[in-house]
């Protein structure tokens, strides 16, 4: 039932809007609205009930295990929320002078410093609102760099064929052509192909390491040398940073620019689709081009760095300073973890992934890269099950929901047929992982015995499998008032 269906003309949550005693409307009639919008007219209790019950229809980290590769669905500490919601934090206007926001600016500055240290980059700007915006900023800086050197023939960004969709989309947004680099059977980038691809048109390369194939790119130094020698720069997609936190730093691998998904590695909540935060870090060459605002500190006072102080900046990416509330949460998380905690993130994410990989292999699943170490994630391919039993990756995914587990990432990366990209994260216990293995093994049995059970799944959720084709064909994108 939609909230609109609880609506009755004239009903109001009366304490929520101001009284209009004595208020006159002096605005010219021709600028005013004639018909009020048909927003719901409901009581406060109806709103509370409706949205409380809706919330219960969701899976979430607070209720389920989410082995969702590349998304790093780990526990979002409640303190990060509680403390970022302190009245004194929430009340600060973004344009309040820096002198009146020293508390907030201190947090942001210290977060910049910590992110520098953990990525090995020279300078960090926190302003990108999400990973994709961080990517945009990164590639835009690469472009600004070449432009500043009048090196304007470079019109191509290299992207491995296994990359996230945002990588090529971002390159396009920055006005670049995209050239894909193939991947070897062992999961590494085809360095020979790369060598053949680079040249005077190469603006740079976008890489994730560990890659989206769940393996560490072992020849990263060679790749860096090849691209650099061709005059290109290296972009690091930080989506998989959780795997290497405190173990190896993108700056040390030779990357010139990196974005970080704080809603992954720094455990800010996914919120049902955002907000995220995608800070960017750069080495020396790209420093002049960082997006503004950033926070500076003279040892005494914190202040904003804007177009004045960073004249070559690629500019602003949002009205104010990006998703500050997300940054506060990440800051709090980082302070809770501290130096030792950072190391442990990668260690236990990797331990969990390798353990889960071995156990699934023992349970009869095929690994995409059986001879490689898992990083924080790994890939199972159900090509065999698809062929033998018509049980697809999607069928496994939907059936897992019935067992109370969120599905792994399906059909990504595109290179591996019928794949499940599985990432358990460090915050899950061994028992939880064992329970997941049991469910997977049970589904494998079901596939052999009664594959319809999988095709028809899910069975226990608020709805059964949805008609996506109809959704796209007979577009129904909004409720409309009757009559």
């Amino acid at each position, binding site marked *: 039932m939609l909230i609109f269906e609880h609506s009755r003309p004239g009903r109001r949550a009366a304490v929520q*809007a*101001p*009284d*209009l005693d004595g*208020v006159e409307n*002096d*605005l*010219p009639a021709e600028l005013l609205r004639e018909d*009020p919008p048909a927003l719901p007219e409901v009581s*406060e209790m109806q709103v509370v009930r409706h949205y409380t019950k809706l919330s219960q*229809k969701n899976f979430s980290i*607070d209720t*389920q295990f989410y082995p*969702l590769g590349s998304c790093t669905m780990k526990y979002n500490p409640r*303190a990060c929320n*509680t*403390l970022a919601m302190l009245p004194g934090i929430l*009340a*600060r206007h*973004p344009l309040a*002078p820096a002198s009146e926001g020293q508390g*907030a600016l201190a947090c942001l500055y210290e977060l910049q*410093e910590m992110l520098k240290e953990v990525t090995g980059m020279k300078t960090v700007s926190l302003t990108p609102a999400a990973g*994709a915006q961080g990517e945009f900023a990164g590639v*835009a800086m690469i472009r600004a760099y070449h432009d500043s050197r009048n090196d304007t023939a470079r019109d191509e960004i290299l992207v491995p064929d296994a990359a996230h*969709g945002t990588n090529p*989309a971002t390159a396009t947004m920055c006005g670049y052509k995209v050239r894909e680099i193939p991947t070897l059977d062992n999961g590494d980038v085809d360095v020979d192909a790369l060598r053949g691809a680079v040249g005077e048109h190469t603006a740079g390369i976008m890489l994730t390491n560990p890659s989206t194939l769940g393996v*560490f790119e*072992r020849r*990263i*130094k060679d790749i860096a040398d090849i691209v650099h020698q061709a005059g290109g720069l290296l972009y690091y997609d930080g989506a998989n940073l959780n795997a290497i936190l405190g173990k190896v730093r993108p700056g040390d691998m030779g990357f010139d620019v990196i974005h970080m998904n704080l809603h992954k590695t720094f455990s800010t909540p*996914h919120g049902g*689709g*955002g907000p995220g935060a995608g800070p960017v870090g750069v080495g020396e060459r790209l420093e002049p081009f960082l*997006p503004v605002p950033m926070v500076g500190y003279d040892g005494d006072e914190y202040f904003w760095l804007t177009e004045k102080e960073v004249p070559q900046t*690629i500019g602003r*990416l*949002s*009205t*104010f*300073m990006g998703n*500050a509330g997300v940054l506060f949460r990440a800051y709090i998380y980082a*302070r809770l973890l*501290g*130096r030792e*905690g950072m*190391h*442990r993130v*990668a260690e236990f994410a990797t*331990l969990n992934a390798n*353990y889960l990989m071995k156990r699934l292999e023992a349970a009869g699943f095929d690994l995409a890269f059986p001879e490689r*170490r898992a990083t924080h994630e790994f890939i199972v391919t159900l090509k065999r099950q698809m062929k033998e039993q018509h049980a697809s990756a999607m069928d496994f995914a939907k059936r897992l929901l019935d067992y109370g587990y969120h599905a792994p990432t399906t059909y990504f990366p595109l290179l591996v047929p019928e794949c499940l990209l599985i990432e358990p994260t460090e915050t899950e216990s*061994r028992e939880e992982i064992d329970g997941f293995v049991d469910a997977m093994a049970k589904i494998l049995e079901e596939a052999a015995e009664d594959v319809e059970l999988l095709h028809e799944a*899910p069975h226990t959720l*608020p709805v*059964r499998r*949805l*008609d*996506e084709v109809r959704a796209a064909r007979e*577009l129904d994108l909004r409720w409309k008032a009757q009559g």
Partner: protein
Amino acid sequence: MPFVPHTEDDIRDMLKTIGVQDIEDLFDEIPQQLRCGTLEGIPQGMTEQDVSRLMHERASKDGQPLCFIGAGAYEHHIPAAVWELVTRGEFYSAYTPYQAEASQGTLQLVYEFQSMMTELMAMDVSNASLYDGASALAEAVLMAIRANRKSKSRRILMPTNVHPAYRATTRTIVTNQGIELVEVPFDNEGGHLNLDSLEAYSGEDIAALVIAQPNFFGVLEDVDALTDWAHANGAMVIAVANPVAAALLKPPGQWGETGADIAIGEGQPLGVPLSSGGPYFGFMCARQNFVRQMPGRIVGRTVDRDGREGFTLTLQAREQHIRRSRATSNICTNQGLLVTAATIHMSLLGAEGLRRVALASHANTRKLVDKLANDHIRLRFNRPYFHEAVLTTELSLDGLVRPLYAHNLQPGYMLNDDYPELGESLLVCATETKSDADLDRFADHMARAIEKQTTAGHPVQPKMA
């Protein structure tokens, strides 16, 4: 070990299952020379108690000033129910609703959000949100370039009374694609976009005209005439709207003869706290025929196998994870949790509630302008304004404003940097959250600051009468 549940037994057994001796062995594919040290630059971990104390100290340092700054972010009352519901784990810690059956809560809510936003804007379709108002304008510009089949140009008319940060952000995002943002000046007396200043572009190939209602100065535009001019010239209209004002003012979908083509704006006034500037959310609505050109996620209603109503992300073929380099945008993460807040907020306020908020805010700003206006301070523009206004003075604005900070009062946004042509000007805003006593407090402190500047060693004579 913070947030790591493993016991010693677990570690031992798991390593055994994997077949290695040590956790370090799991990193053996990383070249040894690349391994990093101990991250000395990161402080030691703290307990929650200590971090809590730190954050309380920092929060109380910044305090809760009496704030009259608007300029794109507005302090409105947010019902307590909003954030008590939004921070429920099932909303807060849920992933993007790609697995529709396990995400019906979020999906239905977004469908309701889309319905509310289209009602508010009087437009056909809405997406599930963008990052914020400024980046939404950038996306709208890209969309207009894609969508305007009549135009072959990559030129956009961008009035300079559109929020400076919106213009800057749009510049950052679109210029790499060879799009030209043509700045159109505002009317010096009215602060609005004068139809005369558009005439220079009549007959030219323009992809879209941007119209902000109210504009950055709070001034109300003659949206009907502007919209009709654009359409007569083959340009699309991108409306930049304040969603609370839209409950009171003519909505973008009703501008001129046929309405705006795309309406975007900052969603923050709909239940989102100021919080130093984010997270907020950008909204985007459009005409039905542009839906496949929209960036960002869209939720549709459909049925399940048993014919039961259900909700799912739809038109994903537009998006980067399917279309890759040919996507409508690289956007991926949106601002789902803020959309959750806005949807609950709009449900609690309703159309009448939002209208009251708009009217009460506007009335407060009018009162404030009356209280502040005197020999030294006057309203800069002569056109009707909504809930925000530019005041100007012949005195040193900085000298008037600074003393107020010490009284925990933030009097407005100084326009000197963004609009040097406006001289010493201040953009003030008093929403419905301000009491008469608050307005008086502002006026009293300002009067004292003026007195100080006009008497003690600053014998500046008023230029205006």
